[in-house]
């Protein structure tokens, strides 16, 4: 009797292990990937501005303030879903948003912003996708919260809704002391 219970016990153990694994499996596999950028310096870049044609934007100028960096493109369906959230964040004025227009057609991007509204304080064009690779972007939209020291403290892959923003991003901003003017000059 005791002998015949061993295989059954082993089988039950395997069932339990598999059940736990399946139950805990993320519904969207990509959400599982933790960005190696978290807690590290945001990669620096110099990219042409989308709207002020001919001018360059340097990521250095982001130092000293909180920024939300949002990677998007007009070819990206999820970005359209996220756009309303970005407009809300812009309305709240809690943080300037830098848009990286990823591998996109400039004219289409300008038309998109004219039609849907422009939540960005600055939009730069990453036409060749090299900066996106430095940031480890693989599925637009992606959003990064960068602190005044230039460290990436939060990241969202995929469309962000207001709940995500309030739950994941906003606490970082309220926790931090507000920037005290330009005393460092």
């Amino acid at each position, binding site marked *: 009797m005791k002998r015949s219970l061993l295989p059954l016990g082993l089988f039950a153990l395997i069932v339990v292990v598999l059940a736990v694994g399946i139950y805990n499996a993320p519904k969207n*596999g*990509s959400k599982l*990937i*933790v*960005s*190696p*950028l978290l807690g590290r310096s945001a990669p620096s870049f110099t990219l042409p501005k989308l709207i002020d044609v001919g001018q360059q934007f340097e990521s250095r100028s982001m130092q000293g303030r909180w920024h939300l960096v949002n990677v998007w493109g007009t070819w990206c369906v999820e970005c359209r879903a996220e756009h309303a959230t970005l407009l809300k964040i812009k309305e709240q004025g809690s943080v300037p948003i830098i848009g990286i227009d990823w*591998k996109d057609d400039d004219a289409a991007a300008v038309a998109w912003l004219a039609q849907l509204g422009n939540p960005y304080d600055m939009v730069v064009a990453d036409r*060749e*996708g*090299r900066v*996106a*690779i*430095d*940031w*480890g972007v*693989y*599925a637009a939209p992606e959003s990064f919260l960068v602190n005044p020291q230039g460290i990436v403290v939060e990241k969202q892959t995929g469309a962000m809704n207001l709940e995500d923003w309030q739950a994941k991003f906003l606490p970082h901003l309220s926790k931090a002391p507000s920037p005290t003017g330009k005393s460092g000059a």
Partner: protein
Amino acid sequence: MSWRVLAVLAMLCWTLQAAAVDNTPPLPDPAMQARYLALINEFRCMQCQNESLADSSVGLAADLRREIHDLILAGKSDDEIRDYLVSRYSEFILFRPRMSLKNLWLWSAPAVLLLAGILIAVRVMRQRARLPITDDDPPDTLPTA
């Protein structure tokens, strides 16, 4: 040439076209090109997670192939290129994860399981060897048909 031959040729052309996912220009040196081909099979396409960079027709895979191509041209070693991609896209981009303290249990699992199997087998065999022969028919009598 009969239309059958033409049809077969046309189908062959079709397969050739389907295989040509990679538009990255070949590297000047055959050794470099061989390294390039080996490397693009080592990395996962992050957008279509069961394909390698070599298989994927997605834009990001093409960008990453271009990046690997440029890094080889710039004289980077294979390990430097792996570090470059892992530092941006995490270990997940590697089809073959590196051994680390965190996943040591996983790497050691096959050896541990094999050892456990051998121990169980030895125990069972020793137990059986000690059993008295209890067959009803002595082996030297022929079964009655």
